[in-house]
């Protein structure tokens, strides 16, 4: 049962997190089950960071349960432009986060549960964790056909992916986290996880698209709370600890000193977009201007999320070459991001010759270049 955090629990957690294993006679020495009260992906990822950096897991294991408001989470070495539809996400206010573990891109919402298994590096064992989840689910509903694959996915009915896995290994601590689709919005999931951007050449880790299904579709009586509780119970049984879920607030600087800095770092543009491995976009698009169709060839190289090389090939003399050069020159070094480009292009227009035709051509070109971002 989930016991709400009383002050006493808070202090116990505080001490468990701060004091070394020898000091406290408490089953929390062997294991802890934590659940986040926040649905902010950055705060929750920061908890993972914090535990990874600060907790002593030599003789202890931790299970962390969390859920997020609609977010797309990409792996550490992935390219968001390649993985998801940033345009739809911006319109629908779906957040983008980059986690520190590897692996592919997933969509989170409150119908998806995340489990993170923290162990020492020695005890890092992904298959065991997944088998634990499968046992928990089968314990809840024995007729469920759930199994783990060699790729560390969980499949429902042999065909549908309900869980993906990723892991992060540090010097002494390792964590393995996985998702679990209970009642997520599949329609939004499939629309945001499809990239509309063409012509991207990149060495970033690609995702493997898969057919997905919700547990809820298989058995409508299953809820996220039930599943979380079942996994927690199985975890407690395996590690011989109290089946006691401690609620934690990821914004609490007292229990987690330094966590707000970690949260901030995970939200910076430099982390989310800037950590994208070098890539290039080479594509052409058509623009309609006063009843004529123009073909434009664009070649852009992006490093650390910023434009390194920019070539825009326009039909001869459509725009004065000086203006086109000005745009290319100024884009170099700028973030590969539509709002930055809009601001930049608008500012540059102020010092161009004031001519309605030029302005409308310039605006048209910039709008089109921005569709690549």
């Amino acid at each position, binding site marked *: 049962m989930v016991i709400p955090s009383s002050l006493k629990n808070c202090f116990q957690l505080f001490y468990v997190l701060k004091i070394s294993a020898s000091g406290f006679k408490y089953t929390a020495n062997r294991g802890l089950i934590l659940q986040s009260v926040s649905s902010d992906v950055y705060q929750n990822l920061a908890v993972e960071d914090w535990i990874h*950096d600060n*907790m002593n897991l030599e003789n202890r294991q931790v299970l962390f349960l969390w859920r997020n408001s609609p977010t797309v989470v990409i792996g550490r070495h992935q390219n968001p432009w390649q993985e998801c539809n940033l345009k739809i996400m911006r319109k629908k206010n779906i957040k983008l986060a980059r986690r520190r573990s590897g692996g592919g891109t997933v969509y989170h919402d409150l119908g998806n549960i995340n489990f993170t298994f923290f162990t020492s590096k020695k005890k890092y064992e992904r298959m065991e964790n997944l088998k634990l989840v499968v046992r928990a689910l089968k314990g809840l509903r024995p007729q469920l056909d759930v199994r783990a694959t060699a790729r560390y996915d969980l499949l429902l009915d042999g065909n549908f992916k309900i869980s993906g896995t990723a*892991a992060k290994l540090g010097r002494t601590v390792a964590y393995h986290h996985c998702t679990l689709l209970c009642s997520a919005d599949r329609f939004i999931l499939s629309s945001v996880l499809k990239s509309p951007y063409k012509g991207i050449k990149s060495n970033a*880790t690609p995702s493997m698209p898969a057919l997905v299904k919700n547990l809820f579709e298989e058995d409508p009586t299953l809820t996220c709370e039930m599943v979380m509780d079942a996994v927690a119970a199985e975890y407690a049984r395996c590690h011989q600890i109290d089946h006691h879920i401690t609620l934690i607030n990821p914004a609490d600087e007292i229990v987690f000193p330094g966590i707000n800095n970690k949260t901030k770092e995970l939200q910076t543009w430099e982390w989310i977009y800037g950590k994208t491995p070098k890539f290039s976009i080479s594509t052409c698009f058509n623009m309609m201007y006063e009843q004529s169709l123009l073909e434009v060839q664009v070649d852009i190289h992006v490093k650390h999320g910023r434009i390194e090389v920019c070539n825009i090939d326009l039909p001869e003399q459509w725009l004065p070459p000086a203006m086109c050069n000005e745009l290319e020159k100024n884009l170099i070094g*700028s973030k590969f991001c539509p709002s930055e480009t809009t*601001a930049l292009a608008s*500012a540059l*227009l102020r*010092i161009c*010759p004031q001519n309605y035709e030029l302005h409308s051509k310039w605006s048209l070109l910039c709008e089109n270049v921005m569709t690549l971002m």
Partner: protein
Amino acid sequence: MAAVRALRSCSRTAGRLICVHHIRSCSSVRFIKSKYMSIFDKSAFKFSHQHRLFRTSAISNGQIVQFKLSDIGEGITEVTVKEWYVKEGDSVSQFDSICEVQSDKASVTITSRYDGIIRKLHYNLDEIAYVGKPLVDIETDALKDVASEEDVVETPAVSHEEHTHQEIKGHKTLATPAVRRLAMENNIKLSEVVGTGKDNRILKEDILNYLAKQTGAILPPSPKPEIIPPLPKSETAPAAPKDKGTKIPIPISKPIVFAGKDKTEAVTGFHKAMVKTMTAALKIPHFGYCDEIDLTQLVQLREELKPLAQVRGVKLSFMPFFIKAASLGLLHYPILNASVDENCQNITYKASHNIGVAMDTEQGLIVPNVKNVQVCSVFEIASELNRLLTLGSAGQLGTNDLTGGTFTLSNIGTIGGTYAKPVILPPEVAIGALGKIQVLPRFNGNGEVFKAQIMNVSWSADHRIIDGATMARFSNLWKSYLENPAFMLLDLK
């Protein structure tokens, strides 16, 4: 005497080091976790490097050690190198991150086992690296008995806390990391210092007292060449107020020295464009004109209208009134809504009043404009402003919203300030900056003091085509509309 003591403490340091390495190879309990260990090592190395007291065989330069990729677990034999955190020539400390590798959905941070300088990276990005094969070459001063074959299996006995425990032969001393560094730099054994803090914790004062008691103490002369990471909060007190009696030992200032470095980066992207715009703007000869507006009546009017706008789903601020009043004024003084060409040879009187509103966003200053204010009602202006503000804060404004402005108002007063000196945004010729609304005492017609809501406005205009009189008259008209909103009704289009 001091030299002997230094020698003695150094060999004890060396002894400790040897002890450390021995312990490490036995895979048993380490006594100090994370970077403090490295500082411990490093300062000792530096000291020994300079004095060469304990080495029998002279090694002039460090030796190159090949740091092999250690076992990652789960039987993995190869990984892909995804990101390097160091490059050749960088100096690293033990436990610094060297690179990030990925294997089958697991991202692994590889940390250095040694202190030293990176001499060679064996792989490029996206290449496959093999477990057990060299990853980087590090030039170290390490003692030869560092076993390079085995895995570094560290088993820290203590969790990372503010107060780290130093266990030397079973003797536990409590001290903050900064205090420990202070002790290290002065070659003081913490076990020799009497702690006066809680639980016999050793405080900074205790170290200072200990030092003060030493006569003619030889203090390590060299400053640390590498960047000291920002110290924990407990140690940011400046070196200035250090009047601890007779001697003020020099190294005390070391832990408190601000080790920040100047950071130079290129001006790129939007900021570069701003540089160009502002450079062009300052070619315009500006003149300023300021005045004070009594908004008492407007404040009351807005209070009445706010809920009505709310019902229609629009947030009503003061700006829609300012904008509409400006447009009414521009009808009488159209030269303020004009534009001149490059050499100031032609003036174009713009028909539309596209009034720009300066907005502060993540990018910086952007100025979206409300189009055709001359045909909009105050409510329509308010709802358009809402739309622009929402898009602006989400970073989703389009080029159409950001271009075509003819006149600008900057409500800097929402942040603060009274008078300002705004810079005209080309190709416009005038701009107004609005200060904050303050409650100030003023005299009314009967000579009585009353509470007035006062706001200051600062106009700037292009003196090549606009003269002071025009600006003043425009300002007076704008002021009259705002001070007596009923007047606006008369002229409303």
